[in-house]
């Protein structure tokens, strides 16, 4: 196996008496879509927070592209190529779709301590931002303020922002949450189109989408990974069925 792009090493996080991340270790090789599934409150978002740098783990290490990033901030990790989306969409509502993506391009292309030239007239920034919008199917909405986009489009925009960062790993926290069936279909197709070019750590409740997209799946229950494997292996795992999938099918 190639050197993993992401390696989590014994991550632990407690909130008060509750162990929300309880010794999580996993590896994501380049180009893999690694899904993390688990019931509500299993600690999936908390895990993503620790990988992205929004939360510090109590113990354990986050190794990204061979470098220990455990002590680095969200912004520093982002500059190294770690892009994340949020469970509740996080965009700049007053900016146009294009300017949302252009900020991400700007962040990785030279200093932002430039005071004279209008940023909106920097062709290089706009071009790269437009590329990201095109790849996520938002090109014709470039000039629309993000606040006026539909829910699904905002999800697409968050992906476009992530792509505009030229990331090496995308951390997606329930990218399909709240999307209607049509929007889900569009987003899944979009993610499938990005497969192999990026590595993904994908948290998602939509099992159909997870099994369609993921190369490997880790099942998180009460902060512990109870199984990791290919979609087929996970589907067949009796412990997983009992702990998680069974409930889901019954529901």
């Amino acid at each position, binding site marked *: 196996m190639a050197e993993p792009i992401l390696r989590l090493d014994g991550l632990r996080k407690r909130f008060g008496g509750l162990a929300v991340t309880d010794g999580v270790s996993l590896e994501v090789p380049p180009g893999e879509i690694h899904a993390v599934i688990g019931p509500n409150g299993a600690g999936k978002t908390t895990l993503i927070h620790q990988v992205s740098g929004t939360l510090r783990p109590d113990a354990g290490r986050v190794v990204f592209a061979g470098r220990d990033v455990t002590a680095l901030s*969200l912004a520093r990790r982002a500059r190294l190529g770690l892009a994340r989306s949020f469970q509740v969409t996080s965009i*700049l509502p007053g*900016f146009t779709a294009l*300017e949302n993506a252009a*900020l991400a391009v700007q*962040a990785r292309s030279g200093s*932002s301590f430039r005071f*004279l030239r209008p940023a909106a007239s920097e062709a290089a920034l706009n071009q790269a931002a437009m590329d990201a919008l095109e790849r996520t199917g938002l090109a014709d909405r470039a000039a629309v303020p993000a606040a006026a986009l539909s829910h699904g489009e905002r999800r697409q925009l968050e992906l476009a922002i992530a792509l505009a960062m030229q990331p090496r790993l995308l951390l997606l926290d329930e990218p399909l949450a709240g999307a209607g069936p049509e929007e889900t279909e569009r987003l899944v197709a979009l993610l499938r189109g990005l497969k192999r070019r990026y590595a993904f750590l994908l948290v998602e409740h939509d099992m159909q989408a997870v099994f369609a997209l993921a190369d490997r799946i880790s099942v998180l229950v009460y902060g512990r990974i109870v199984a990791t494997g290919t979609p087929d292996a996970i589907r067949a795992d009796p412990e997983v069925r009992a702990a998680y999938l069974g409930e889901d099918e019954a529901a």
Partner: protein
Amino acid sequence: MARVLPALVFGLLAAAPFLGLGQGWAMTLLARGMILAIAALSLWLPVGGAGLVSLGHAAMLGIGAYAVVVLDDARVTEALVVAPVAIAAAALFALATGAVAIRTAGVQFIMITLAFGQMAFFTAASLSAYGGDDGYTLYGRSTVAGARWMQDRLGFHYLCLGLLVVVFLGIRMLLASRFGRVLRAARENPLRVEAVGLSPYPYRLVAYTIAGGIAGLAGFLLANAAEFVAPSFLAWQRSGDLLFMVILGGLGSPFGAVLGALAILALEEWLGHLTPHWRIIFGPLLVLAVLYLRGGLVGLIGARRG
């Protein structure tokens, strides 16, 4: 309308001395309005531009004014020296206090800037060498490269107007730049800015420092306009007045600060002529304005147009 409004207002200010406002009292009032507009613009940058609501901004103005006092006392009255010192002193104060305050947000930021402002106020009041509470009367206005044209009413008028236009255009340029984009983005959603790899803190601190410098310039002008400086220049009520100008004018655009400053000064003047108890009318009027003019005065004018 919103697009040509600045040119229109600046044009009117330029023509005002020849439109029947050339008398002493009117020119004094106009100069004061333009200086307050510069001060309000400097406050707009952190409040409207970066989303940092400061309640200690008068301190920066006051530090600029006291720089004039200290130099005047040392017989240094050359504007080309005094103004840069006033700007630098206020910017330095902004940098030092901002480095602490900007680590906080919301109400905490308001309280910390207020506290720093009060510290500066009490310091000024304790400067007995410069008149303490009573303030300090300047020997005269600054000279510019040795020439005395700041004494001249028209000269001073156009100096204030010129600086107001430069500051306004400068802030507009700043906002549109890469730097301004980060600032605006961090106002809307700091988490998003961090997630794309930028930490808002240094950008906010630089903006706050620039704002301090501009306020120092306004303080320099204010001291020269009145030829007198007192600790009351730094009082928190003055900070409140400035904040009011910015909010009344509208946070959506820096020109709001200019409109807000001119409108409040005009209103004060007009009501002051009607009744000595003008504050009784002024207060409720401001409350109504905040309630019903959501986008401020610029919003009102922009919306008219559709």
